[in-house]
Each structure stands twice: as structure tokens, then as C-alpha cells.
């Protein structure tokens, strides 16, 4: 069975929900502890949402230097699928696994809403079961979700199909070019601010579109073997 590691940092909030989503999708969730140097042979890793290390210094800045992250950075550079959700996205940017940075929302308030996204690239491990241009609804909740990058980086992201999602209808935080999620060159590392793990069950989610992330992963891994 596909084993998906879910990292818990001090201050992670959505690790349990992410693990539950993995289980709901018929995959095996493997809890990974921030202080461990062991990925336990997982097939993929999720960095969950929350406020790792209290968001002290900068969001994700301290988590980036935790022991488990040195393992994840090495493995991601070897092709391990990694999904960073919200705070996990911030950790990936701080780790330089993904370009750019996330700063405080332009409206300076915490935003919590059902967010429509446009799928821009299906050329990643986590979106290959989606359609290009497909609109999906995924819940969003963040205070520091404004994606920014310098001009040169943006041009490269746009030119090399590394923008994975754009906000559709409304840009909730002032992200440049409406960017909601990006990927690395290889397409195995994806980060996004919205929370697909909250959109896998009818009881609690406004849509089931979060399932597509896990279906993508499963489809990628089964094609690889």
C-alpha cells in the first residue's frame, strides 16, 4: 500500500486532518516527527498546515531547519513527492525547495473561505489527475498567504509551467499573478495555500475536490512502478 508520511512540527494543526484524508483515500498515513532523522521509507510526504514553531521569526523559518527537513530536502531533490499545504508551503519556500516567499495578506486580516482555484499545470505528481483549466473548490485559511517572487523568478515560473494553481474569481491575499500554488522544475514538490485535506469528505467540506490531489499521487506512483 502507498505510504504517505505526514510531518508533525511543534505547532502543526492540520497534521491529523491530513493523515485522516490520506486514510480516507485508501492510502496508509505514516506519522513523521520533526525531530526524527528518519522518513521510514514513505512514498510521499505531506507538510501540513498550522503554525510551526509558533511562526516565530518568519512562517516556516525554524521548521525548515528541523532534523526531518534535512531528510525531506535530500529526498525531494531525488524525486520524492512532497506536498506542502499552507504552513507546509511556507516551509518549502523557506527550504528553497520552491521559489518565492509568502508574506502577510495585503488586506492584513486572516482570510477563511471556500476558494475557487484554476488548475494551471497538471504536469506535477499532485495534479496529474486534474484537467488543465479545471476549476476546483478548496478551503483557504491563512494570514500570511501572499505569494511573492522577484520579476526574474516569476518570468521563469510562468515560462516553465511551474505555476500549478491560480486563485479564480477573487484573489484573497494579494498574491502576485493570482498564484495559489507552485511546483519545482521536476514537478514532484508542490506547495499551495488552500487546504485539500479539508475537502475529502461531504460532511465537512464544501466539495470533494481535495481528493484529486491524492488520486493524482496514487496515479503517479502506480504508473512509476
Amino acid at each position, binding site marked *: 500500500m502507498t505510504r504517505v508520511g505526514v510531518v508533525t512540527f511543534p505547532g502543526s494543526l492540520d497534521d491529523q486532518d491530513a493523515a485522516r484524508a490520506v486514510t480516507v483515500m485508501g492510502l496508509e498515513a505514516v506519522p513523521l516527527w520533526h525531530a526524527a532523522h528518519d522518513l521510514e521509507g514513505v512514498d510521499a510526504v505531506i507538510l501540513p498546515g498550522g503554525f510551526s514553531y509558533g511562526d516565530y*521569526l518568519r512562517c516556516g523559518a525554524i521548521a525548515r*531547519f528541523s532534523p526531518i527537513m534535512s531528510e525531506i530536502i535530500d529526498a525531494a531533490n531525488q524525486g520524492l513527492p512532497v506536498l506542502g499545504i499552507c504552513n507546509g508551503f511556507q516551509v518549502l519556500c523557506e527550504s528553497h525547495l520552491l521559489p518565492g516567499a509568502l*508574506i*502577510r495578506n495585503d488586506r*492584513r486580516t486572516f482570510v477563511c473561505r471556500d476558494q475557487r482555484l484554476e488548475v494551471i499545470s497538471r504536469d506535477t505528481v499532485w495534479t496529474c489527475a486534474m484537467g488543465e483549466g479545471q476549476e476546483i473548490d478548496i478551503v483557504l485559511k491563512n494570514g500570511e498567504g*501572499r505569494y*511573492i*517572487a*522577484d520579476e526574474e523568478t516569476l518570468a521563469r515560473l510562468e515560462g516553465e509551467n511551474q505555476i500549478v494553481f491560480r486563485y479564480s474569481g477573487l484573489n484573497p491575499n494579494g498574491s502576485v499573478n493570482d498564484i495559489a500554488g507552485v511546483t519545482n522544475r521536476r514537478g514532484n514538490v508542490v506547495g499551495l495555500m488552500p487546504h485539500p485535506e479539508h475537502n475529502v469528505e461531504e460532511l465537512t467540506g464544501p466539495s470533494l475536490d481535495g481528493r484529486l490531489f491524492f488520486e493524482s499521487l496514487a496515479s503517479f506512483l502506480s504508473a512509476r512502478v
Partner: protein
Amino acid sequence: MARVIVDVMPKPEILDPQGKAVTGALKRLGFEGLTVRQGKRFEITVEGDEVTPDRLDEVRDAAEKLLANTVIEAFDVRVENA
């Protein structure tokens, strides 16, 4: 003990929402013509009586690695004279 100061500021082209909020509050209090950008100041105590150039380079390295995110922030390192 010697002390090194690291100042970290959002780069000029980066919107600074905290500074903007403080600017707005100052205006409401009647302080006219003041525009604020807000950063962070780190006071680092370094073992030994003086900060050698090597030590200072080390602090610069630390600032680049952890204290500042150079994608969005610029930093300045200086020795504070007692």
C-alpha cells in the same frame, strides 16, 4: 562580552503591511508626514572580549541563513561598541 546587531528590513519593493498599519495609526493620532517601514533587530552577544572579523563573518552567515529571508528581506550587520 561583545555585541553584534543585525537589522533586518523588508526590501523596498516588498509591501510592508505592518509598517503600513503603523503609518495609518500614527496619522490617526495626528502625526503628519511620517511613513513607517517595520523590520526586526537582533542583538547577539558574542563570547570573548572583541568581535574578530571571522566572528563577524560567521554572524553574517547566520543572518543570511536564518535571521533574514533574502528573497524578501535585506539585512545589516554591525558591531555595537560599548
